[in-house]
């Protein structure tokens, strides 16, 4: 059922991925999953993050952008905050300044507290999952599309094509992805694409933002910054596959290069690319949070952005920076565990490829 749905949605890509996963591989995946507690934990975390992102308007108790200055910087449940309230009073005809210590208690309406503008932290953490996962998946898709195309061409044709493509990959690698991403987003400007929220449009949930802002430049840039890793892996695969007997056979009966790459080389390179893609989603989520933290993002509903905001209130309101960080760590741990599961089951031999944040 799921398989049919996916093949309707993604057509060719899904067929290729399925074609590349042999029955034996599928068996290994299932076996590894059954035996590994960590793999199960990873899948649970990832599925939870996807559901939270998809149903954000239903799950969030408040509009994540609504400010309430009377209820700002409220602590999470179970904590209280000590602040000094200064007031002036008339005492015996002269004005005296009175400093009074007040305890601000948590509000059950805001279980994870509020930020400095009184926005609900829980709702912001829930909506933040959307930005992270959207950028993670779309960015990885762009990186894979560019990288796999370049890598397969380089590995299959070899010679001059290979040299030219791989030297340009070397140049790309010389720039740290974060530095390059900051430069590109900063210089090209932040493009924000509002996408209507289907759950709100259908009237399932009201009182929530009716559109969701996609940080367009960021998605494009994180994709273009990370294609090199896919190119390296795809090239290695294509290089070894193009000398196989069945490729020579296909060539001898007159199959075109495009046909051979699509029908033989690509399906046989699917496994390592899939594992790399998983690692890349994690890396790109970390990269997105770094960009948002530095102020190079197109949206204000992002975990990294909230962490940056909370920095100024570290001494008084620790939760503003802490909570979104925990959300990032849990999501990325989930993805990394899934990546470990795939790698242990498929053994594609690409340990350590794929760049960090």
């Amino acid at each position, binding site marked *: 059922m799921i398989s049919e749905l996916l093949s309707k949605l993604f057509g060719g890509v899904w067929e290729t991925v399925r074609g590349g996963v042999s029955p034996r591989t599928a068996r290994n995946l299932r076996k590894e999953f059954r035996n590994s507690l960590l793999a199960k934990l990873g899948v649970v975390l990832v599925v939870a993050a996807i559901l939270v992102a998809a149903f954000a308007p239903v799950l969030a108790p408040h509009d994540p952008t609504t400010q309430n200055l009377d209820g700002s910087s409220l602590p999470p449940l179970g904590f209280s905050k000590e602040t000094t309230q200064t007031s002036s009073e008339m005492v015996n005809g002269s004005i005296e300044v009175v400093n009074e210590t007040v305890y601000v208690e948590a509000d059950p309406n805001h279980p994870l507290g509020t930020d400095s503008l009184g926005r609900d932290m829980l709702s912001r953490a829930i909506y933040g999952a959307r930005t992270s996962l959207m950028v993670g998946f779309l960015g990885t898709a762009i990186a894979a599309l560019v990288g796999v195309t370049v890598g397969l061409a380089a590995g299959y044709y070899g010679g001059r094509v290979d040299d030219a493509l791989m*030297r*340009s990959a*070397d*140049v790309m*690698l*010389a*720039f*740290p*992805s*974060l*530095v390059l991403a*900051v*430069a590109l987003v*900063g*210089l*090209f*400007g932040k493009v924000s694409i509002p996408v209507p929220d289907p759950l709100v449009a259908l009237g399932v949930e009201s009182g929530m933002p009716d559109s969701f802002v996609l940080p367009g430049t960021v998605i494009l840039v994180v994709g273009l910054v990370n294609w090199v890793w896919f190119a390296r892996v795809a090239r290695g695969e294509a290089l070894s596959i193009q000398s196989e007997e069945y490729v020579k056979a296909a060539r001898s009966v007159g199959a075109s290069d495009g046909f051979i790459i699509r029908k033989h080389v690509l399906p046989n390179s699917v496994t390592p690319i899939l594992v790399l893609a998983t690692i890349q989603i*994690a890396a790109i989520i*970390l990269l997105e*949070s*770094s960009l948002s*933290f*530095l102020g190079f993002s197109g949206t204000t509903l992002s975990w*990294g952005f909230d*962490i940056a905001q*909370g*920095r100024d209130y*570290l*001494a008084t309101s*620790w939760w503003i*920076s*802490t909570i979104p*960080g925990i959300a*990032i*760590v849990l999501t*990325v*741990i989930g993805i*990394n*565990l899934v990546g470990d599961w795939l790698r242990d089951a498929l053994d594609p031999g690409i*340990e*350590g*490829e794929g*760049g*960090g*944040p």
Partner: protein
Amino acid sequence: MSMGRFLLRRLLQGVFVIWGVVTVVFLLRFVTPGDPITFIAPLDAPPEVRQNIARELGLNKPLYVQYGEYLFNLVQGDMGYSYINSTPARQRIFNRLPATLELAVAASIVAVVISIPLGVISATRRHEPADYAATTFSLVGISTPNFWLGIMLVLVLAVGLGLFPTSRRAIGFLPAIEMLLTDLDPGGLVTWLWHITLPAITLGTYFTALITRLTRSGMLDELGKTYVRASRAKGLPETLVRYKHVLRNTLIPVITVLGLQLGTLIGGAVITEAVFNWPGLGTLVINAINDRDWVLIQGSLVVIGAGFVIVNIAVDAMYAYINPQVRSE
């Protein structure tokens, strides 16, 4: 191939890559939207003023002339003058470089010193508590954004317990050493260490976690190979097998990955600097991008890119030294 020829070939390749880096950085100004002059001239400046600025900065010349001049000056070490305050870009960049290098080196030392023993312990005591602790640490370590880790360290150790300063680099490493040697005063070095501890942990944690994972899995792979069984069978002591044979073979892929991940270290330094207000190249680049100070942007990107290429050649040389197979490729 001899070591000398191998190095020569790598150096030549490196020169080409650096040339590519310079070209990309140069072209960046022409593909990004926005005229640099609008950032320099007052908003209501008449066209003549704009033309004058363009002429003074050489921005009115054809692309290939500008490119030629840029290369020509760069080879002589001239990176031009900042658009914003006319200071020489080279001076600005090289003033900032020590802070970034100190941070990166300190983080790498922390990472290597902790991670390799941790990975070895983890692999040789598989499924024991020490292994579980090490694998949990490394999983969390590679999944934590370093800027958030830095903020949490500040929150707990600096703001909460007051053990470390929240930000700033009070003294450089070289002045601190100088103080020690000339005045026999270790105070400078202590201050340096006190300020760099949190930034170094912030930057180093991801690498510590990554290398621990790689060492562990590499060592487990090697321990399963037949040469290990053969060495044990002929009666070699276990320590010799583990540390001379197995660990050496494990370190080969670890070094490759370290070379590849060097960019991540520099990128990590950029954001660590932002967290701790560390006066390094990272904060310089970010400010330059925000100001559209092209001379400074180009200069710092060239230095970062070229630095990456040079360190990578060093890593390759080390790699070829340890593993002679590479040289024959």
